[in-house]
Each structure stands twice: as structure tokens, then as C-alpha cells.
């Protein structure tokens, strides 16, 4: 079966230390003000009347690009600069094809993409490609002190990630509007889960989709017109005006 790299996360062990965020930022030189990954937290509830029974401490949830199997960002990219790599199942950006148009940024329900302020292309998690090339795990996985993030090929039954998935119930986080089939699994349960946003398209992309058939239609109609004229020229090869007043033969 085809390789599908994925992250299987036990968010109940996350202590919100944000070491994964720091490690990622340093490893991938993520510029100030931007992040490739995150730790989200649920609201703790201390204010209930019956607080001794219902107290719910905050729950922390590490995350990042979910390297979806139905990636809405890939469908939004006009050039294929953002693509799902068949060899490892990761969603990547070809930064020499990307011109930084940002069609993909609102298309991600998870906010996993940003336009890099100095490289002028879209940047995102690539499961630390350069570390994997030398046989290491992604920086966030290695760094995590509680080993909340487990990384591997979930299509390989012997991998830790596949084993964990097999032995436990797990959930994926999606927006109700589209099943992106994320390759980030949370063991048993996690919170918060209602944070993804509806995948959007910039006005320009929407307009393009709207007008695309008309443009091709106009080209097609003109091509048809040319074919008609060609046909006419071949079929009516002796087409001459009955009385051509301006013909040079008559005048000279």
C-alpha cells in the first residue's frame, strides 16, 4: 500500500509546554509572527455552581498541517505548486513553482498556511522533509517531552502510528462542510474540536471559476466560426460577386 505519513496524537498527555512549536520554529526558520504548528486548548470551567463535580481542567491539543487525503488547499492551487506527494502522502509546496498568490491560504480549514514574508511563497509544515532525508523524525515529534506526537506511515501495519491507531479509538478534526480526511489522528478524544473554519476561496479564484467556461466558450465559438469559413471556402471555391463594381479588371 502507498505510504501515508501521519501523526497520531495522544492529546491527554500534552502539558502545553509548546516545545513542539519552538522546535519547529527554530528548525524551519519560521519568521516572527508565524507558526507552522500549534497547541490549542479547551476552556477550563471553574465557574459552575456545583463546581466540585463539574470542574473540567483545560485540555491541550497539539496540531499542525493535517496532510489531508482530500486536501482543499491542493484543489485551490491554480498551478499545482501545492500538491500531495504520492511518495510519502505529505502535502507540500514546490516553492519554485509557487508565486505566492495565496489562493490556498483560506482554503485550509486549519489555518496551517501562511505567505512567507521574505521568501514570498506559501509556507507550511512538510513533516520536516530535510530531517526525514537524514533519517530523523520531525522536530516537533523528537522534542515533545511527553511523547504526545507519534509519527509514521499508517499504511505500514508495523509502524508505531499504525499500531496505536489499530489498538485505540481515534478521532479526526474536520469542518462539517467538507471531509478533508486529515492524516492527524487524536486518540480516544480531544478538545477543542469545533475550531476549523469553512474552506474559503479568494474572490479572484471564485470569479475565475465562474468566468472560465465563458472564456473557453468564446475560444470554441471562434474556432467553430473559422472552421465554417474554411468549409465554405473549400465547398464554394468559385464564389465570385455577380457584379463587382470595384474590381480592378473592370477599371483598368
Amino acid at each position: 500500500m502507498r505510504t501515508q505519513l501521519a501523526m497520531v496524537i495522544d492529546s491527554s498527555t500534552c502539558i502545553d509546554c509548546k516545545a513542539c512549536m519552538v522546535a519547529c520554529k527554530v528548525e524551519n526558520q519560521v519568521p516572527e509572527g508565524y507558526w507552522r504548528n500549534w497547541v490549542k486548548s479547551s476552556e477550563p470551567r471553574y465557574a459552575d455552581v456545583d463546581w466540585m463535580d463539574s470542574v473540567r481542567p483545560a485540555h491541550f491539543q497539539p496540531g499542525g498541517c493535517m496532510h489531508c487525503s482530500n486536501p482543499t488547499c491542493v484543489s485551490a492551487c491554480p498551478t499545482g505548486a501545492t500538491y500531495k506527494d504520492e511518495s510519502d502522502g505529505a502535502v507540500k509546496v514546490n516553492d519554485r513553482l509557487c508565486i505566492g498568490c495565496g489562493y490556498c491560504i483560506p482554503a485550509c480549514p486549519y489555518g496551517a498556511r501562511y505567505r512567507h514574508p521574505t521568501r514570498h511563497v506559501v509556507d507550511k509544515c512538510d513533516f520536516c522533509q530535510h530531517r526525514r532525508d537524514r533519517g530523523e523524525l520531525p522536530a516537533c515529534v523528537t522534542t515533545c517531552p511527553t511523547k504526545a506526537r507519534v509519527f509514521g506511515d499508517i499504511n505500514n501495519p508495523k509502524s508505531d502510528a499504525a499500531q496505536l491507531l489499530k489498538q485505540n479509538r481515534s478521532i479526526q478534526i474536520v469542518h462539517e462542510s467538507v471531509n478533508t480526511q486529515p492524516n492527524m489522528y487524536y486518540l480516544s478524544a480531544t478538545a477543542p474540536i469545533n475550531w476549523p473554519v469553512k474552506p474559503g476561496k479568494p474572490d479572484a479564484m471564485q470569479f475565475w471559476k465562474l468566468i472560465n467556461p465563458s472564456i473557453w466558450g468564446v475560444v470554441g465559438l471562434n474556432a467553430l466560426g473559422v472552421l465554417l469559413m474554411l468549409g465554405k471556402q473549400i465547398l464554394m471555391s468559385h464564389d465570385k460577386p455577380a457584379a463587382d463594381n470595384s474590381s480592378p479588371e473592370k477599371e483598368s
Partner: protein
Amino acid sequence: MAHQTIHRHTRLSIFMHWFNAVCWFFLLLTGLGLIRNDALQVFPAWPLWMRSVFGSPETLLLSHETVGIIWAGGFLIYGILLFRQEVIPFIREILTVEIPRDSLWLITKGIQMTLGYPALEKIAEKFGFDSRIPDQGFYNVGQKLFAIPSILGGVVIALTGFIMILSQYGTVAAELVQWSIVIHFITVGLVFAGLLIHIFMAAIAKGEQPALISMFTGTVPEDYAHHHHKLWLDEIRASDAAETSPAQGNG
């Protein structure tokens, strides 16, 4: 008289026309190969094919950008150096339209091109207009109606292309890049639609061969000029007469 040839295009304008045509085809084919998106691409195999021809998608992009810069840069230099000699007269010519005469030309020529002369005569009789195709100047109104959008379109295509290139080397507002892509595509599509007709009229249509040949030699036979661009020929004759008549008067 009928075998005399008349100067029609300068060498430089002939060069610019074919330089433009070669760049246009290269840019059209590579540009279409850059659109790889299921919802937008009408020929999904084309981008795959182009990318393998060029070795990689990034080489395809780079080639498209390089030729685009050469194309736009070539016209920028030409436009600046020959602004008074060629650009202004050309623009003046293509913007000179006489609505009643030229709309009748479009109607009669349109019917003749598609349905033929007999049909044109019948239709003209039925609707009560003159079936003779009105005389035209240096360019006929059909050529003008292609020239105007193709020049304007060229400017739009070059500017939006430039914005997209710039976006990779400096911070350009995202909306500007996003709209540039769409406007670039739409403009190319519309000019290309017109181009199909242009190429048919110039290279395939019967009776137009002298124009095609003139795009290499620079001259047309006088009888062709008389038949297709009578008002232009009249102008040349008038100015020739103005130049030579005083000399004749004295001699």
C-alpha cells in the same frame, strides 16, 4: 500598372510582427501548461505533458517568465525608439473608424465570408442595403477590431505578468497577485479567440495571400491594394500626385 508593387510594411515592423507571433505561441502553450487545477483546466493532460517536455514544472515557469520578459521588453524598446515613426501612425490608423461605412463592411464581409456572394446579394436585397463591400483604408475595420484589443490586451497581459513575477521577489499585496492571474488568463483567452480569426484571414482565406506575402517582403501588388485597401491606395496616389505635379508643371 497592375504589376506595380506598393510599399506596405517596414522591415522592422515585419520583424516585430513575427517576433510577436513566435513569442505569443510559445507563451500560449507554456502558459496553458502552467494551469494545473481540475476545476480550471480544460485539457488536463496538457500541463503534465508540458512539464515533462520542460523537465520540471519550475523550468516551465521560468521559461514562460523569461520569454515573457523578452517579449514585453522587445516591445518596450521598439515602442520607445519608434514612437513617432511607427507607433503613433499605427495607433492613429487602427483608431480611425467610420461607423456607417465600417459597420456595413462588417455586415457585408461577414456574410460573404460565411455564406458567400450569392447569399450576400439575396440578403442585401431583402433588407435593402448595398451588397457591395465598402472600400477600406490601410487596414479594414476587421483588422482594426482585432488590432485594438490585441494591443490593449498585450499591455494588460504584460502588466499582470510583471506583477506575478514581482510577487516572487518582493512583497506584492496578495489581492493584486490573485486578480493578476485571473485577468492575465481572461485577456489571453479573449485575444486568442480573435487570433484564430486573424490567422485564418491572414494565412488561409482566399484572396488574402498578397497580405501574407507582404508580411515577409513588405510590399503588395497594386491590384491587391486596389481591391482590398482602396482608400489607402487613393491616399498614396494623391500624395504621389501632389509631389510630382509641380515638377511636371515646370517641365
